[in-house]
């Protein structure tokens, strides 16, 4: 009996260790102990975790490859998603080293918690209409977003692309009739790409990234809503050296080149 009880206690202890081991690092202590940018001179190594807005997918994939080539001992892991969702994850203790957002508002969410070490603006982006190849809905301009017979996909206003779309539509006084409000810009592109939506309002860069499945229609009034992209190392990062190196590359010549090729504007 004692043997059995001992075994049970052992099993319970093992499970507890396993459970505790799985817990993400959310304690404030771990965050405070790190100081970003303390050792910029040392060659970075280890894993660099970048949280990036969905609209950065193609550029950051390319930059991650370049970064790993320059720093062979670093493995870059990028978590793409809606900026607002990512900001929320970082605030809840997700282990990010760098956050690159599609709006200043979502970066502010992180800054308000004292977690954005040093935000810099590295790119701008404007909106464009996106339609499936062949433009089955015969969409010509922003005013077509009000046509009730078309299936229109927009971003929800919580996402930066949705906030920009709202701002633009208010500025040009068009009452859009959306059929769905998606949580991030890539979800809108997907709906258009699959032909389920006749038109969507997304970033210029997303239209370019989607290739031949879609067509972009430039908007004359797009300067009414320009999105700026801030990036910042995260306070308490486990890899501050690599985080600083990443931001340096992003704002340097290589970053500019890749971003410009994708259609992003200069800050």
């Amino acid at each position, binding site marked *: 009996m004692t043997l*059995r*009880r001992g*075994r*049970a*206690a052992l*099993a*319970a202890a093992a*499970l507890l260790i396993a*459970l505790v081991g799985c817990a993400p690092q959310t304690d404030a202590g771990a965050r405070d102990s790190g100081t970003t940018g303390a050792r910029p001179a040392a060659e970075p190594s280890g894993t660099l975790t970048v949280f990036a807005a969905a609209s950065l997918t193609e550029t950051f994939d390319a930059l991650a490859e370049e970064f790993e080539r320059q720093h062979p001992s670093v493995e870059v892991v990028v978590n793409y998603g*809606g900026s*607002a*969702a990512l*900001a*929320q994850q970082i605030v809840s203790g997700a282990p990010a080293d760098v956050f690159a957002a599609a709006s200043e508002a979502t970066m502010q969410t992180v800054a308000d918690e004292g977690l954005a070490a040093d935000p810099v603006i590295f790119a701008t982006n404007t909106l464009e209409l996106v339609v499936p190849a062949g433009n089955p809905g015969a969409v010509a301009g922003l005013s077509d977003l009000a046509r009730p017979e078309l*299936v229109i*996909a927009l971003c*929800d206003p*919580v*996402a930066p692309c949705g906030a920009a779309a709202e701002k633009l539509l208010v500025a040009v006084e068009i009452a859009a009739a*959306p*059929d*769905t*409000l*998606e*949580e991030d810009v890539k*979800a809108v592109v997907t*709906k258009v790409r*699959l*032909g*389920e939506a006749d038109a969507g309002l997304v970033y210029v860069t997303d239209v370019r990234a989607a290739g031949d499945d879609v067509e972009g229609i430039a908007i004359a009034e797009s300067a009414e809503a320009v999105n700026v992209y801030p990036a910042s190392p995260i306070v308490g990062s486990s890899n501050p050296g690599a985080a600083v190196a990443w931001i340096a590359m992003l704002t340097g010549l290589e970053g500019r080149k890749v971003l410009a090729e994708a259609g992003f504007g200069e800050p």
Partner: protein
Amino acid sequence: MSPDRGRALSPLILVLAGVALALLVLPLVALLIRAPWGDMGRLLTSPAVGQALLLSVVTATIATGLCLVFGIPLAILLARAEHWPVLPRRLLRVAVTIPLVLPPVIGGIALLMLLGRRGLLGSVLAELGWGITFTTGAVVLAQTFVSLPFLVFAVEGALRTADRRVELAAATLGASRGQVFRLITLRLVAPGVAAGAVLCFTRALGEFGATITFAGSLPGVTRTLPIASYLALQSEPGQAIALAIILLVVSVVVLLALRDRWMPGVGR
């Protein structure tokens, strides 16, 4: 009285069961503790919440109805397949199981491939002016897709354990096929049907991935409570928790109420 009563459980079982229970219950306890109770009145009476709750309850109810109408016959077929050759029997079982193991988002994509505007059937329907995507009907369909297996397996389980000789006896005594089904079979499996319907309803209520992929997200039309909760998480986490608590309360109330009445042995 069950023969197990009074026999002490081994400590190992108790410890492991305790860990399992803690994993299930503690996150919900944390949710309740962190909920913005002071603000709850304002959060819950906002029109967006009422709209999402109404949409969720209505669509989940219709989805449960569809599961009953089409799922009970499928369960009967599945129970009957016991006497089939191995391969078709297994294929049938796999087909019913797939929605349980498929990530719901992929289920949504699969529904788009079939019923989307450019889908196999959807392109024909769209020609006729019966486009389904981005409608409340798409929400119901996505919910039915993911919750159907719960009903089918519950009813099939009841059919397997039911005493089928009663059906034979009724048939021998001159009952028609329809009479046997209505008066005997359905009554034999009533507890399984009720349990399956409850599981179906709660699964449909919580459905997220297939819905957002196949039906989109528009307030009042396709934005159900789980989707509203997910979006709120990005702007107002307090509201997201409030929405989650509504879902939790509705599900717990439904499970408790129906199980007491219908599930033999559970409500005692």
